[in-house]
């Protein structure tokens, strides 16, 4: 019988089977692994993404002519706007928006009716509070056509698209966050966020649990190599990650109708590399932490900046330079670039090869840290 020092299939199998059994027995964790991503997807997905309706709006107008009334009722008919305030001056309206009382300010100039009657190009101004860009985006996107159709109907003309656009110019100002994010960005991003949280959290207690239950002493006294222990611990979670990916992808295509223009295999490749990096990161944390509590704290210490600086919450290029630098050290940052490029822009392999290579680099780095940090003794 030959004894390999670093990796023996029999020993690896022993550890793998043991981990799978323990995972299966731990019903709550097992359920959480599937329920949590779904719940997060639904919660975040709808909370962030939903097309919010009946948003409070203020109308700035000086006249009460029938065009204005038609415009207001057309906007209200879209169900997006609820005009709660009618004010006479821009300053009053701005104060309302600054206080957060209204999300939109619709300004109809005093010469509006005159211009429409003469057949000149009329303007209305819609200001949207874009601090949370997804809130306003649905309302704004429907606005232009709705408004011009209403106007033409009011003049007794059956509108064509071209006519409508010539007749009315809707000027949209996004306030506070001029870049705006397409809400399609969010669901693919959520995939990365959900995986980051669950994968790292579950694997971060891999070794600490053995240590706290006292089983580490026995495990270390038996001939298992650090590499075997590591692989035995992370592989089951890698499988869980794969299942989560499937769940999130299927659910997001059913629930959110995200256009998927890229190549599926490329997305899956990126996801698997990303998940591998995450379980290794979690395992690395568990070689450092002494207790499960510490492991969870470290996980969150990693998770929060991951979310904030990866480009999930704020547009990456909009962050200060130093923050972009920090952001580069999170796998999520690179994953987001790949997943958005592949899912939304249909990017092919050469376009994302660099980011995928960076993700693979994380795997090597984390594995190296974990293996050197792993203590073969109880010291």
């Amino acid at each position: 019988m030959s004894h390999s020092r670093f990796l023996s299939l029999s020993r690896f199998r022993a550890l793998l089977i043991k981990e799978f059994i323990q995972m299966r027995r731990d019903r709550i964790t097992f359920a959480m692994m599937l329920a949590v991503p779904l719940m997060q997807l639904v919660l975040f997905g709808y909370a962030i993404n939903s097309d919010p309706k009946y948003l409070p709006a203020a109308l700035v107008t000086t006249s009460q002519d029938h065009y204005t009334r038609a415009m207001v009722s057309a906007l209200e008919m879209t169900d997006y706007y609820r005009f709660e305030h009618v004010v006479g001056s821009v300053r009053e309206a701005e104060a309302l928006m600054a206080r957060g009382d209204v999300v939109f300010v619709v300004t109809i100039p005093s010469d509006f009716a005159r211009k429409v009657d003469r057949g000149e190009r009329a303007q209305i101004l819609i200001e949207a509070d874009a601090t949370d860009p997804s809130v306003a985006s649905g309302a704004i996107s429907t606005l232009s056509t709705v408004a011009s159709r209403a106007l033409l109907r009011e003049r007794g003309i059956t509108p064509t698209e071209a006519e409508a656009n010539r007749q009315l110019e809707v000027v949209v100002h996004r306030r506070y966050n001029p870049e705006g994010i397409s809400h399609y960005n969010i669901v693919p991003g959520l995939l990365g966020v959900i995986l980051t949280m669950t994968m790292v959290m579950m694997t971060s207690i891999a070794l600490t649990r053995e240590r706290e239950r006292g089983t580490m002493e026995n495990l270390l006294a038996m001939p298992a190599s650090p590499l075997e222990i590591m692989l035995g611990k992370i592989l089951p979670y890698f499988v869980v990650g794969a299942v989560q990916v499937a769940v999130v992808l299927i659910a997001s295509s059913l629930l959110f109708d995200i256009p998927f223009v890229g190549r599926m295999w490329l997305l899956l490749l990126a996801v698997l590399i990303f998940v591998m990096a995450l379980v290794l990161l979690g395992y690395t944390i568990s070689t450092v932490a002494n207790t499960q509590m510490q492991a969870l704290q470290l996980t969150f210490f990693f998770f929060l900046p991951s979310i904030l600086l990866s480009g999930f919450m704020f547009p990456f290029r909009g962050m200060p330079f130093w923050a972009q630098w920090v952001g580069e050290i999170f796998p999520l940052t690179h994953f987001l670039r790949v997943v958005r490029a592949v899912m939304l822009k249909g990017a092919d392999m050469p376009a994302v090869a660099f980011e995928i290579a960076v993700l693979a680099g994380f795997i090597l780095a984390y594995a190296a840290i974990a293996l050197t940090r792993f203590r073969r003794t109880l010291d």
Partner: protein
Amino acid sequence: MHAIDVHGLVKRFGEKTVVDHVSMMVEQGEIVGFLGPNGSGKTTTIRIMCGLLTPDEGGGRVLGYDLVTEALKIKREVGYMTQRFSFYEDLTIAENLEFVARLYELRPVREHVDRTLEDLGLTSRRNQLAGTLSGGWKQRLALAACIMHKPKLLLLDEPTAGVDPKARRDFWDEIHRLAAEGLTVLVSTHYMDEAERCHRISYISYGKLLATGTVSGVVREAGLVTFVVEGPGLERMVSEIARLPGVEQVAPFGATLHVVGSDEKLLSDSLAVIASRPGVTVTRGDTSLEDVFIQFMSKAQDNMA
């Protein structure tokens, strides 16, 4: 070749020296008892020997392998039973044994597990979670698991704590049978009767090895004399006797008192007063291993003070 040949082992945790220059030689096939009060460093010493802790000083060989550089080889040929149950409580008995069998690359796994279960008498409970076993059964499972791969050296840390007398008797019979086949055993225990079943004992206190040898040798070297006092109203005499010059220990044993001291002359003179009372007899008795240990412990406390 000695199964254990270590010298000058030192282990410190922070400021505290827990193992203080411990040297130990154990022949192949020997059963050595490892005794000492709580916190004296038994577990720590055993952990060093199976490569679970690195000594701060000292070193040596276990089964011919270097303690520090060849830990993996040592692990493969040593069976270590931890003081605290450290198998997986959320795995069944059979699953735990399968895990161990695969880790040691025993083939076929199934056969090894079945035989071990049968020897244990746990075949019918093979699918019970290990965590639901009673304390004594956990000990027996752990022991069975650590001899499954036929180790050359067994390091047992209080293997019979909480085990019933019959199972303990079986356990010691098994240990002697294995030793006869050449297995070496180092076993820590707090039970005197178990110490007496060892070929040799080592006594450790505050990290220092104080005595080593056969039970009778250790007792002899301690140089203690024991008198047995019998008679009416013994309970009332205890404190009186304890104050007499030369008396180092007084302990009631059933209807008698054992009085122990190291100066025979002084002790017998002191006890003469007691012996002259009506109905009281004082005779020479045998010093037991326990008397010797109690003596060690009280001395160690004096040193600490």
